[in-house]
């Protein structure tokens, strides 16, 4: 299904931010992912028309970056870090327990489309190893037990917006630093919850 009118308008606003259309590819791919939970072929066609490159060029770029998904993700994208600081702080056990709880292997999504599980490289939370991200909201200082509780909670509560601080307080442990205190913003799908253009639109040059 082709893109809705509002989405195309938004896409065009984003395109206008850049000196060259093609630069808007990354944010447009996020729009696509927010809409469908992955980069669908229809969105690729749409984006290729919007920025004036071929479909396969869009696909080539999209597939280069690991945050653009080829298959539809679940409501919660569980990204467990396995890079060096987490690795030596036993992220393996966290990975194993999340896998066991969800029954998912790397990059898999459950049939109910609740969880997608992935092992990821460093998410910049090394001080709070082992760390995870839920829809790119970080939770640090996990234990295997706490990671299961976190999944259980998500499964039961099904929050629309995932708020890092809330999760950290409930399930996290040691933190990289005192981040985001009293910050109740969060992400609502497997894309960083982030608006490219805001109120300052008119004030731009």
């Amino acid at each position, binding site marked *: 299904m082709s893109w809705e009118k509002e989405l195309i308008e938004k896409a065009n606003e984003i395109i206008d931010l850049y000196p060259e259309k093609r630069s808007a590819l990354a944010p447009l791919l996020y729009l696509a992912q927010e809409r469908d939970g992955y980069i669908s*072929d229809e969105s*690729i*066609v749409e984006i290729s028309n919007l920025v004036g*490159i*071929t*479909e*396969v*060029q869009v*696909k*080539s770029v999209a*597939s*280069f970056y690991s945050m653009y998904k080829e298959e539809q993700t679940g409501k919660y994208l569980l990204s467990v870090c396995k890079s060096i600081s987490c690795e030596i702080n036993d992220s393996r056990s966290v990975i194993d327990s999340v896998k066991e709880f969800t029954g998912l292997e790397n990059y898999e999504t459950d049939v109910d489309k609740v969880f997608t599980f992935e092992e990821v490289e460093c998410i910049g939370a090394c001080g709070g190893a082992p760390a995870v991200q839920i829809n790119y909201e970080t939770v640090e200082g996990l234990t295997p037990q706490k990671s299961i509780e976190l999944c259980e909670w998500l499964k039961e509560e099904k929050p629309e917006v995932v708020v890092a601080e809330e999760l950290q307080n409930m399930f996290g442990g040691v933190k990289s630093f005192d981040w985001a205190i009293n910050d109740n913003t969060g992400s609502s799908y497997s894309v960083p919850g982030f608006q490219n253009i805001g109120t300052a639109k008119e004030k731009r040059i």
Partner: protein
Amino acid sequence: MTDKITINVNGSEISTEPDQLIIEACEDSGIHIPRFCWHKRMDPVGMCRMCLVEIDTPRGKALVPSCTTKVSEDLIVDTESEVVKKAQEGVLEFLLINHPLDCPVCDKAGECPLQDQTMAYGPGESRFVEDKRHFEKPIPISEIILLDRERCILCARCTRFSDEISGDPLIEFIQRGNKTQVNTFPDEPFRSYFSGNTVQICPVGALTSTSYRFKARPWDLKKVSSTCNCCSVGCSVELNVSQNKMLRILGEDNDFTNQGWLSDKGRYNFEYLHSDKRITLPLLIDSSTQEVSINESMDLISNEIFSHKKSSVSFIVGPNSTNEEYFALNNFVNDLKEKNDNSENINIYFSDDYLYKGFFENQEKLGEIKDLDLADTIILWSQDIKDNLPTLYLRIKQAVKNGKKLLIFGHTNTAIKELTEHYFGEEIINKNFEFNVEISEIPDLEEFILDKNVVAILGKSSPIQDVEPITELFQYLNEKSNLKVLNAFSKGNTFGALQNIDCVKGLNEFVNEFDESKRNLVFTIGANPVNNSVLSKKIKDRLIMSDFVVALDMFLNETTELANIILPTTSYGEKEGTVTNLEMRILKQNKILPVPGSALSDWEYWSMLLNKIDNEKLFESEIELNSLMCDEYIDKEILPSFENLNKPQNLDGILNFKPINIEIENINLINLEMLFVHRLYGDSSSQINSPSISMLGSERFIEMNYATYFGSYMLNNDVVTLTQDDVSIQVNVYINDSLPDNLIIIPINRRGFQNLDPQKKVELEVANSREQLSVS
């Protein structure tokens, strides 16, 4: 000319152009540096790392890719040091760990740089004990190209070619790192006029052609250089033959013309040579069709010619004969005129709707393709360049990439609109190809041409068009700029015909001069004017009215159907001769295939007929013809003799010039409703008898702008029935918003369209279902 500089390679001094890459400088001095990704006609990417060499730097020796590093005065390069060897062996091993061991079944084996370099530099035994990367084995990525991703070494040659050179980036890298693979978008096949080039430049067997797959081993191939006759660019090619079958055509790098590239038409249009539909014996058509001997057929024809001295004799020649053949025909016709009482009734007509007088008067104004590289501005008013002179399109594209400005006039060439600085369409030129404004008033024109180096590629956009405006443009440019002109006749050896035939007329003249009251004898020579021309219907009527028709052809077609005698002829590859390209460069065609059955080349027929007029005269051979032809050249220094042209250094041919005489009237109609254009692929006999590409010319479609489509006809389906009088055809509709309102583009080289009248409106009606679309 810049001063040369000296560099030191492996202890010896070599002299090189400044600004060259190390790999090129070494190559020119005979030092080969192994490489996979580098290709001299594309921007370097330095990806494969096979070409690493050591250079001396202020901070000691450094390992650098020779394909991205430029030479500098006194640079010291080592291409053979231990470090270099180790690095190259390392790269090779890396490339091989994931490369399948399927050389025994690979088309590339025997001419595979990876295979060769493994022999030369490679490790003995594999130290890789893990699983190789696996992909689905060859997948078709278009009708004619297959992709085997397991064999791919990710050199980015194909992706760069399609992006940088041909400008249709439909093949790309997908994924990253070790998962990287080349691929197309699922619903967007690699449909490019130039896709075959990627097969040729792929250093391994990852990209293959359906037509060549499993057909031969390189060591079984006989090879000869020649010149393609698909269009008048005159691309240098290498013909590859095994067991007397043409199996493959490769592009040869001729800096003057194609720089190694070919269109897919030029590359794949050869299977017809071995079609069992070819005519191999003369056919006599009375009440029935019967095979006759060559001698019988010659007797019959000479009898027809000489027993009626007042006959009008017309020769309709096609574009695929050699210069020598046109020369022989011209000689025969001149002798015939002498013999015949009414010489004005003996005429040669050239079978190309686009023919007009052209701009030949002033020899210094005639440009070369190379001039595109030196121009400031390129002006294009002609038929669709991408469809009709495809490799010239690549040169234009390259020139634009290098900063030349392209200005387009007319309603064709919309496919290359994105390359233009200015597209002078509807606002400047009306539907009938007349200027809406004074040329001098055209906004943004003067600044691009005034005192600039301008190359104008000029020709008719469509068979039916007034050429006056083009002439006006020519005169304006001639006045204001330093002008070079390329006459954009696109068919095969048109320029050879123009050079070697004393007077060439057009199809329109044939139609108009035809005098029913006379006895009419018509020869068609490698031409099928009953199809493919806007005048087809009228020509057909004339042929029916003729008393005797002789058709020289390879296949039965709409024209041979009306003949009394059909003489089997030969094709490129089966004869030796020269051809002349659109810059008047003479290039060699070589023979590598035997002639099928009793077929003869045109010249042999002319020779025999000449002999009938005057039994003193007979052309003995192509060589003799060539030397007779050379005798007529003014400049004896640079003769286009076989001997000269066969020298490798003369691969590019010799520029020479003989006066040209085209006697032609304008086909000047007004109120155009339809614009006839010629597409690269059509349903010519050669293409439909070449199975690998026959389907590419089968679709029937029309193009129009959005307003015409929705505004006038309120359609919402892309398959329509097109009706005019008693003609009714189902076609696909494509939107092309560069077109003026209410003008419909029709591909004239697809069957079914010839009977439309360009001045009358057509009715469009939504077809019931897609299935009805007939694809023949």
